[in-house]
């Protein structure tokens, strides 16, 4: 209960910062709009089956890039002001830090996915099929975004610490989150085609999200904070 309260407090603080400065959201939304414009120009001539097959890829490709952008920015702000280390030494449960970051990251990614979906609906009439089952679509977007951010927040926070910031988040993040995007892609295609098993596919996305979230909570503290052993510094050959 205490952990949940701390999570919500930290998330509220992050969201307040975000509402004041619109740093992450503005960057992500701007990227979203640029990508939409490129999709409009690049795929404007596609019609019918070819376009229906491309729509899931357009949606999740932009979510993948927006997600990594948002996660990088979310932790970069902490690193610039050296508040992440302060958070780690504060009397706050470390899982609450992870929970707050994951919550804020998911909110940003869901917001960007919503804009992307609206844009795709505006640009391509075939995307209207996605909105035939709005509840399933909402569950899919939230589930896939949560799964993506669950993994991303662990590695972005590890990269926010001084010693590892030189390593690219993308190298780590994209191969790991690709299975999530694969599940989301299949579920989105099922929604567009009006497949009878679309709900099952969305359920699979949520199963992956729960699995990744459990794994992330299990390893977060160990990845971000080294366990002191007295011999952790190694000579690099």
């Amino acid at each position, binding site marked *: 209960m205490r952990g949940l309260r701390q999570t919500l407090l930290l998330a509220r603080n992050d969201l307040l910062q975000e509402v004041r400065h619109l740093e992450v959201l503005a960057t992500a939304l701007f990227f979203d709009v640029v990508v939409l414009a490129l999709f409009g120009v690049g795929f404007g001539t596609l019609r019918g089956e070819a376009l229906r097959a491309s729509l899931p890829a357009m949606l999740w490709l932009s979510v993948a890039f927006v997600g990594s952008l948002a996660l990088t920015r979310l932790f970069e702000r902490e690193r610039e002001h050296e508040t992440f280390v302060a958070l780690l030494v504060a009397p706050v449960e470390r899982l609450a830090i992870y929970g707050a970051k994951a919550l804020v990251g998911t909110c940003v990614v869901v917001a960007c996915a919503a804009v992307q979906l609206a844009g795709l609906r505006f640009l391509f009439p075939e995307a209207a099929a996605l909105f035939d089952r709005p509840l399933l679509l909402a569950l899919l977007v939230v589930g896939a975004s949560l799964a993506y951010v669950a993994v991303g927040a662990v590695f972005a926070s590890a990269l926010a610490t001084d*010693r590892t910031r030189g390593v690219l988040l993308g190298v*780590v993040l994209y191969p790991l989150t690709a299975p999530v995007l694969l599940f989301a892609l299949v579920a989105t295609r099922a929604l567009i085609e009006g497949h009878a098993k679309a709900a099952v596919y969305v359920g699979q996305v949520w199963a992956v999200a729960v699995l990744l979230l459990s794994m992330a909570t299990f390893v977060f503290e160990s990845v971000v904070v080294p366990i002191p052993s007295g011999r952790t510094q190694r000579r690099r050959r």
Partner: protein
Amino acid sequence: MIRILWSVLLCVAAVWFPLAVARVFLDTPIEREMGTVQKIFYFHVPMAWCMMLAAIVSGVAAAVQLLRNSRRAEALSLAAGEVVLVTGLCVLLTGPIWGHATWGTPWTWDARQVSTALLFLVFCAFVLLRTQGAAGTERLAAGLAAFGALDVPVIYYAVKVWKTTHPTTDVVGTLPPSMWRTLFFALAPIAACVAGLVAVRYHVERAEQQLDDLFLARSDPASS
């Protein structure tokens, strides 16, 4: 002890593997529909099983490394991770050769192919981080391996969950006895070789860790 283990395993593999090749090509009947090209199955499938097993070993060892700060687990995770690269490369080479002969195209973008390629990429990133990353990236790499191992169930269930060009997982049970016996006969030397390679790399990595500790103790006696 480890040295004896890997020596025995690699010797067994070296003696057994030619026998397995002879059995695959000389004593096992040719499959009616695919013909001689089906023989690649006896190497592709065991290699894929070994790759998945090595990925699980690497992931579990990485989780133990993270939770207990165990140097042994760290060495095992790296050793198994590198073997995932070797076996993964073999799987990704033999698969398209077989696919080209049976499906008419080497790569169909089916879920099992993509998830296998992703597992390979994850462990590429893991080995890159371990070999090129700055000090402190060990934990990050361990997290990567732990998450990467979660891709193994995705590979296994890909043919059950989605419609793919790959045969389903129960295909081995439907094979004639002569074929599945040969499959397990070919699996033994490949598994022995993989286990031997993991043991060799584990041995080398442990030696490197001990060398590092000695170096640190010599350069900063207070830390030892």
